Structures are given as structure tokens and as C-alpha cells.
């Protein structure tokens, strides 16, 4: 088996992996290897041929491939060792990776520090247990997106889209532009699960009906999908008898959620937060295993690539520092805690020393939408350390709150068990 070693090893060549690798180089790491299982770099972006990427990072509204290209170019310039079509098979807590590709066979790579950047995958039909037949023509929206935008094939002609996730809405527009009919978009919750801008630009502008509180209760068709049965649901998501509608279609697209891809992380024993589906991380995106960092959608599912890039820059920089300096002894840090109307907060743990060096951005998702001005507040032992007004909060749109460096002394003074509590005040 071919053996390699390096300072920083990045697993996954999407925007997170690319940014982490580039910033590890900038922070002085010497040997950097990036492994990507696809034949192209850029992660999910090459198939996202719409715009909406990079407004913050580059001050320009780019398409996915353009955004990816900028980072691929930077990665090339940074003289990294980029191995594509290379799949990581396993990872040990001692930071040894086994990977495979057709050129080298099996590779064993020992790294001083690792950045996990495997992105996420889509929830399939089985996860929802939709009853009915099992014909051809049921796809996740991202798979359909790849078929259409990369392979050049249409998976069907008449679509029903279940779930108002961003990929589903973007595909509604894309399929319409390709001459197919999108009959309806169905969403089980009383609110949108993706970004409002996609509702406007991809659904409303094309006159596609969206039905909230509605789900698919049966798939029909023997060889190929022939129809779906849609039903309204009550507050517990139970179908309401008598509301069934038969919607003829030949394809059902699912845009019902993304799951961080942490099989490899689990193998190494990286502790995973059941709420986000990603590793528990601190402000440096260090997981709870020393020397193993995580960046991008593998931590929690971001809406915007700009946030992914920014978080990955930090992860890469901190991984480089770990590779150079090793572990510093430090205490347990201060936990963050999801308070009223907050589903989760990332990072999970904060250290005062790190906060003293630079501010920390907290990312969070709310449980319920509130369509009027609210205040977001972070408190520690009753003291408000940061707060911010927002015009609204929506579960489909990640919110953020910056913890200023001035708050570092309060973190340092926190007693064991104290948590930084983040809540939405309506």
C-alpha cells in the first residue's frame, strides 16, 4: 500500500474543502493533500448553474461553477496535492486515512491534522416511508439536478416536487425552462423550508402552485410513476382524511432535507450532534477529537456558500496551526445552548482565549417562523453578551450573531456548567 504523510489532509473538494486547504497553506502548513471522490472539484457547485453565489465573499453574484472555479484556481495556485476520483474509505482517531483510486490503488495517509469537508447528502424516499408502488421516476432533487445539468438528461416530463427545499425550488425553475411541466410543489410544514428568494424567483415567477401543509400519501404507477396522491396534514403531520387529490405526473422529486455526510467521521469516533447531524465543534471548527476539524455542510447544512467558505477558512487555518503546534491543554470551554425558538447553535463550545483573539460568529436555526422584528440575544449567567435585531426569522434561513472579542473576559469568568444561551425574543 502506498503510504503518504502530510501536515493537513482535507477530505472533500467542495467549497469547504477548497477554502480550508487554501487557508491552511496561507497559515503556513507545508504538505497539504486534498482528496475528492468525484472527477471534478467544486463539490455540489458544478451542477448549480444558477446564480446566487459569492455576493459576500466576492461582492459579485456568481453562478455555482464560477464560484467553484475561483476557488479551484486558488487551490491550484497554492500548490496543493489535489487527488480527485479518490474516495476515503476509513479514518482512524490517530488521523490515518485509507483511500482508494484507480491510479494508486489503496493509499494510506497519515496527517498531523485533518479537515472533514464531505458535505451532505439528500434524504431519500425511504426515509419518509411514502406508501404506494415503487416505480421508476422517484428522484431526489439533487440527483435530478445532476442528471439535467451535468449529464444532459431529463428524468421526466411532468413533475410533482415534494418539499420546498432550495434544490427543489431551483429545479422547479430549471425543469420548466427545459420544457417540462412542474405541476405543483408540496410542503408538509406551514412554512417554506428553503430561502424566500427562491420562492419568488423560481416558483412564483413561473406560476407554479405551492401547497403548504400538504404531503404525498401515495405513489402510483407500475413501471413509471403515473400519479401521486396528495393530502393535507394536521399540526402533527397526520394526513387529513377526505383531502386526498390525485395529481397525474411521471416524476416525483424529493427535496425533503439534507443530512451531513458523516459516515467517515463516525468511523473515527468523532462525536456527532443528533440535532445538526454533524460533529460537535468549537469556534475553530475543531471536533472533539484532537486534530480533526470539520468545515462546511458536514458540520451543519448552510444556506449560503459564503458562510461555508468563511467557516472553512477558519477551520483550515486552525488545522494548520494544530499541525504546527499540536494540542494545547485547555479546559472544557463554555457550551452554547439553544434557548427559546432556537433549534441549534454552531459552534457548540467556545473558548475565551480564542474569542479574545477575534470575534466569533454563531450560526443558528430557529424552530418557528416569526414574520416581524425580533431580537436575537446571547446571554451568559444573565448578562447579555451580544444581541441583534432581525426583521424576521425563518427556519429555512440561517441566522447569525457575532460575539465580540470584548465578551472574552465574561467567557473566561464563566463557572463550570454555565452555558451561553441564545434565544429569539419576539
Amino acid at each position, binding site marked *: *500500500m502506498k503510504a503518504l504523510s502530510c501536515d493537513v489532509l482535507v477530505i472533500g473538494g467542495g467549497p469547504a474543502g477548497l477554502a480550508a486547504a487554501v487557508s491552511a497553506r496561507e497559515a503556513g502548513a507545508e504538505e497539504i493533500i486534498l482528496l475528492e*471522490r468525484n472527477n471534478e472539484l467544486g463539490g455540489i457547485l458544478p451542477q448549480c448553474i444558477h446564480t446566487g453565489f459569492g455576493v459576500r465573499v466576492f461582492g459579485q453574484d456568481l453562478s455555482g461553477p464560477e464560484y467553484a472555479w475561483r476557488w479551484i484556481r486558488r487551490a491550484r495556485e497554492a500548490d496543493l496535492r489535489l487527488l480527485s*476520483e479518490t*474516495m476515503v*474509505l476509513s479514518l482512524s482517531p490517530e488521523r490515518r486515512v*485509507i483511500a*482508494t*483510486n*484507480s*491510479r*494508486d*490503488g*489503496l493509499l494510506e495517509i497519515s496527517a498531523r491534522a485533518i479537515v472533514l469537508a464531505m458535505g451532505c*447528502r*439528500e434524504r*431519500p*424516499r*425511504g*426515509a419518509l*416511508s411514502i*406508501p*404506494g*408502488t*415503487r*416505480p*421508476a421516476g422517484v*428522484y*431526489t432533487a*439533487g*440527483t435530478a439536478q*445532476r*442528471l*439535467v445539468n*451535468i*449529464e*444532459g*438528461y*431529463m*428524468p*421526466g*416530463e411532468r413533475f410533482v416536487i415534494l418539499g420546498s427545499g432550495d434544490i427543489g425550488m431551483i429545479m422547479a425553475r430549471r425543469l420548466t425552462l*427545459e*420544457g*417540462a411541466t412542474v405541476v405543483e410543489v408540496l410542503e408538509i410544514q406551514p412554512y417554506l423550508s428553503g430561502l424566500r428568494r427562491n420562492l419568488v424567483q423560481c416558483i412564483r415567477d413561473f406560476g407554479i402552485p405551492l401547497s403548504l401543509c400538504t404531503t404525498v*400519501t*401515495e405513489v402510483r404507477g*407500475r*413501471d*413509471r410513476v403515473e400519479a401521486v396522491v396528495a393530502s393535507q396534514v394536521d399540526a402533527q403531520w397526520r*394526513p387529513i382524511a377526505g383531502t386526498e387529490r390525485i395529481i397525474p405526473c*411521471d416524476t416525483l422529486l424529493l427535496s425533503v432535507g439534507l443530512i451531513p455526510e458523516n*459516515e467517515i467521521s463516525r468511523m473515527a469516533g468523532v462525536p456527532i450532534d443528533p440535532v445538526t447531524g454533524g460533529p460537535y465543534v468549537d469556534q475553530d471548527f475543531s471536533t472533539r477529537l484532537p486534530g480533526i476539524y470539520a468545515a462546511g455542510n458536514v458540520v451543519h447544512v448552510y444556506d449560503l456558500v459564503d458562510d461555508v467558505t468563511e467557516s472553512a477558512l477558519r477551520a483550515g487555518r486552525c488545522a494548520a496551526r494544530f499541525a504546527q503546534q499540536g494540542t494545547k491543554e485547555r479546559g472544557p470551554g463554555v457550551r452554547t445552548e439553544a434557548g427559546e425558538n432556537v433549534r441549534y447553535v454552531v459552534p457548540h463550545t467556545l473558548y475565551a482565549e480564542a474569542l479574545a483573539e477575534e470575534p466569533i460568529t454563531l450560526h443558528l436555526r430557529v424552530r418557528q417562523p416569526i414574520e416581524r422584528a425580533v431580537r436575537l440575544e446571547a446571554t451568559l449567567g444573565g448578562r447579555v453578551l451580544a444581541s441583534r435585531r432581525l426583521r424576521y426569522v425563518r427556519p429555512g434561513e440561517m441566522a447569525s450573531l457575532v460575539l465580540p472579542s470584548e465578551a472574552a473576559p465574561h467567557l473566561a469568568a464563566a463557572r463550570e456548567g454555565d452555558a451561553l444561551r441564545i434565544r429569539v425574543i419576539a
Partner: protein
Amino acid sequence: MPSELYDVIIIGAGVVGSLIARALARYEARILLLDKASDVGEGTTKANTAIVHAGYDAKPGSLKAKLNVAGNALFDQVCGELDVAFERCGTYVVATSPEETATLHTLYERGRENGVPGLHLLSAEEMRRREPAITPHVAGALWAETGGIVDPFALCYAAAENAVTNGVRLLLETEAIGWLKEDHRIAGVITNRGLFRGRWFVIAAGLWADDLLHRAGLDGFAITPRKGEYFVLDREAAQQVRSVLFPCPTPISKGILVTRTIHGNVMLGPNAQDVTDKEDLRTTPEGLEEVMTGALKLVPGLERRHIIRTFAGLRATGNTGDFYIAQPPEAPGLIVLAGIESPGLTASPAIAEYVVEMLREAGLRLAERRDYNPIRKGTPRFADLSDAEREALIAQDPRWGRIICRCEMVTEAEVVAACHAPIPARTYDALKRRTRIGTGRCQGGFDTPLVLNIMARELGLSPLEITQKGGASRMVVRHTKDPLQGKEGER
């Protein structure tokens, strides 16, 4: 071609028909195996619980009892020769109340009468020790050492492949629709591809056996499809289940069980619901709920978030309560296998031998072939290999280094091999049964675009021609930038 005379024509390439074909391939005989589906094993063989039953269920003296016990004993040899995954992990019937422990004794006695070796009654504590996740209400259990789990698809296509490499002719997408009678004897089978003449005709058509009998003018036997629904759970759930857990049986079924599968997933089901349509493989909200409720009674810690798939199968329940394997005197030339419901998979190797003996007794000359080879070697599974074995394969052929299905770790080499096997995988589902591609937690989300291209390349087709399971089940329907194609009336 249709004028060629076969010694035996087998209708139905499920596990039963395929194993019969293989058993006959040992002899100098012209054998034809037909199936209406696009692959072998597309009937009940692909949707069942995959348990190799020990044999304590069936009524003593019945054909079911006899062939179950005999079939079970043949599994090590058959699966060894055919390179099919099989594990004698043992099965348990779990009593969840003191009253149910009486049933365990009944089953134990019945098993002894049927000649089942290795039956033991276990205490509740012993059962808890063996399966720590079992319900706290466990009151005792029956342990059947000889019970096991198998890959039922593999058993079927491996047997059919071995038959084909030993000279059996296989025709897929060939449906028997009637019979040619000459001199009061069945002399040919009429299909959508024409007439095939033969001396003997074996009906191994599962749910459709009664229809084929009707077409030969025989009306006594009727099959009622009885549906069973299932959940498949992610491997993570396998931490809760080490073997096969049955509840105490009811008069109509063995009950909803919780089992580890041979590939390391967990499966829950089946319930039992009579239906009218032999193609009604729908899952239903009520059925799935019943299955989940039943499974939770045995293992209360099962989690819904581990569900990765649901499916349903149809039992070919006959009106005699037993397997019906006979040569109806009204239709000489026919051998009928009907009502081959559970434990049909377990019994299948014994059924095959039984049918060979029937044919021999009926006068078919069976001379052993000198060049018969009972051994079939499957393609290795990358996921199951050691690192050294993986290295060696990649060195031989770089396609072993390219992973196509991330969840089940299937490589391009395995996909290519399946496309060129003695029975090539020509549909996505056929490929899935052979390689496990698309059966993991992402359910094909990652591999589908890759597989479409590889299959098209290997089979000399366009991706537009690749189907999920034959017929109209195309996976993609047209090129992009070609909006008129496929729209009626606009061309």
C-alpha cells in the same frame, strides 16, 4: 428456433424454477427456462423475509414440512457451490407472555416430529443475554440452531447462471400464454415469442401457477395473493439485532419479525393481508403501521429514523394449505408447483431434487453429463475484501479502485462484471440485486447518474434505454434542450 424440441421447459425463473433448471443441467437434456420478467427472480423471490427456516412450523406429514427440513439441510452445500451469502445464525421464536410459552412447547414438539435437529427451549434470562435489545416482556424462547439467513436474489441468479453455463437456455421477457395439446398431451407452450415444443413442462410460475393451470383446462387449484409489507433499516440499527426474532405465530402467518439481513441491515415484517390483484405490491399506511407496531413489540428500541426503504411481497397462498407439486392426470406432460409460499425459499433446493425424481420416475432419461460443473464463482465484493485483496484487484484492473456507490462501497469493476455476467444485469434493479448498488442509506442518489452511463457503455445502449425494471420503467426520458421530444401532438 421454436421448432426445436426441449426435454424440459420450465416456466418461471424464480428461485424454484432456477434451482430446478440447475438440478436438471447435471444431465444430458435440453432444458429451456422462461420468465416473463426482464430478470430472473423478479417475482416473490425478490420480496420475502429471506429466512432459511428450521422446519418446526409446518404440519407434520405435509410436503411443506418434509421439503422444508430437507431443503434447510442442503443450504450449506448449495450456497457453497454457488457462492451465495448464507449464514446459519440461528432463529428464535419469542414468547412475550407466560401463555405464549405454551406455544413454544407446541412448536418444539412439532419440530421434533418433523425431524428438525437443534431445537432448544430457552429461559427469558438466556434470551435477554443473547439479544439484549429484546422486549422486557420476554417470557422464554425457542431457539432453532439450524435456522439462518440468505441472500435470496443471489441464490436465484446464481442458480440460473450456473444452469446457463451448463447449457440451459434462458429466455427472459418471454411469457407463457397458452398450451399446445397434441394427442391429449401437452406438447408445447405458447408464448409472446412463439411456440416452444417440449416433452415436459414444469410450471414454477409462483403466483401465476393457477392461471397457467386454468389455461390447460385445470380448475381445482386457486391462489390468493397474500401481501406482506416490510421496512428495511440502516445498518446502524443492526446494533440492536443479532439474529432472527419471530413472535409466536398466529393461525395465518409466522408473524411480524425482526431480523438482521445477510448484508447487515435490519428488516421488519411482514404483516399478512389478502389482496385480489397479483401485481398489487403497494405498501399501505395501515400495513406499515401494523409492521412497525409488531416489530416494536419484540424490540422496543427500534428507531424510525433508521428506515431506508419499504417494500411489499405477495405470498402465493394456495387453497390446500400445502405445497401442491403434482403431475395432473388430466394434462400429461405437466408438472405443477403451486402454492409455494413460505417456506418455499428454504425448501427450494429440496423441491428441485424432488422434481428431478418425479421426472425420472415419469420416464425422462437422465444421463449424467461428464462436463457438468456445479461450481459458480461470483464477483468479489469490494466492501467485503481485506485491504491486501483490494490492492491486488486494483493492480489487475484499475476499475476496482473507482467507487460508484458510496454507501455500499461498490466499484466500477463490479458494475462492469454484472453487465457481462452469464445472465447480464440489463436493468438498474437487476444490477442492484447483483451488486447492492443503490441499496444503502442514500438509495441511489449518488450512483444513479454514474450507473446510467456505465450500464449504457457496457451494454451498448443509450442511457435513454436503461430501465429500472424493464417495460416502461425508463430512468431518463430525453436529452435536455429537446423540449418537443416526448410531448404528444407537438411534433
